[in-house]
């Protein structure tokens, strides 16, 4: 999944995204370049606020969450490395498997724990490669309806 930055200031955000005790105000300047495309490594939704975890202009070794209203989606394909999890507290997240299977993964990653950093490095490499593959042209309705059924041999060759 790829997104393009369309704004980088707190003033461009809906009120519900602002949080002054955490320094997210109308004066906040996010470390984003307007017009630049970013690969999305994880998505989270919490109480109506949607965020994308990307490697922004401040990237050191971990992706940071940035508010979704600052972006437009330019490639909405779902990564093959993603899973969905709805936590008991209502946090909805889409991320790679280790994000969920390793307890406190993002906490460990941002702390700089070596194993978590190496895992994210590798996942980033894989997801960057995946995102670089051009989107196939979608079939028109006419093309789809005119297609003959696939044979079992052809179905077996469809990438999973």
């Amino acid at each position, binding site marked *: 999944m790829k997104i393009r930055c369309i704004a980088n200031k707190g003033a461009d955000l809906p009120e519900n995204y602002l*949080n002054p*005790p*955490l*320094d*997210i*105000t109308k*004066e*906040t300047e996010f*470390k984003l370049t307007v017009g630049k495309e970013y690969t999305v490594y994880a998505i989270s939704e*919490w*109480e109506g606020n949607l965020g994308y975890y990307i490697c922004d202009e*401040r990237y*050191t*070794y971990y992706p*940071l*969450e940035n508010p979704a209203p600052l972006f437009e989606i330019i490639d909405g394909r779902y990564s093959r490395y993603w899973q969905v999890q709805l936590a008991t*507290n209502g*946090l909805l997240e889409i991320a790679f498997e280790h994000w969920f299977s390793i*307890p*406190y993964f*993002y*906490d*460990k990653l*941002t*702390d*700089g724990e070596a194993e978590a950093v190496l895992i994210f*490095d590798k996942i980033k490499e894989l997801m960057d490669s995946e995102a670089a593959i051009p989107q196939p042209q979608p079939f028109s309705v006419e093309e789809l309806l005119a297609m003959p059924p696939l044979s079992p041999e052809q179905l077996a060759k469809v990438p999973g």
Partner: protein
Amino acid sequence: MIRGALPDDIPTNLQEQILLQDAKAQPAIMIQGGSRRPLGDAPRLVAHYGGQPEDWYKMASNQTAIIEGYVAEIHWYRNACTLQNVEYKIKRTYPKTAPKNQ
């Protein structure tokens, strides 16, 4: 067993000292925390500084600095109710080295 309060890191050079001063003076970046994704350290922070686990967030400096071959940034914890900031750490990232051929 809950660990004790951790002291602030001490800068090892002038650039780190300036980065730390700027982190304390400027708006920060919230990394994670709160009731949404509680910190692993939240019980320890509550035990030593008070508040509720969901009050605590991990913050990062707005700025990073490239210093003699590594990138430095500052991380710390903030209680979003009291705005208390504690345990400033200097995170140093060194460039990766390519694995040697066997």
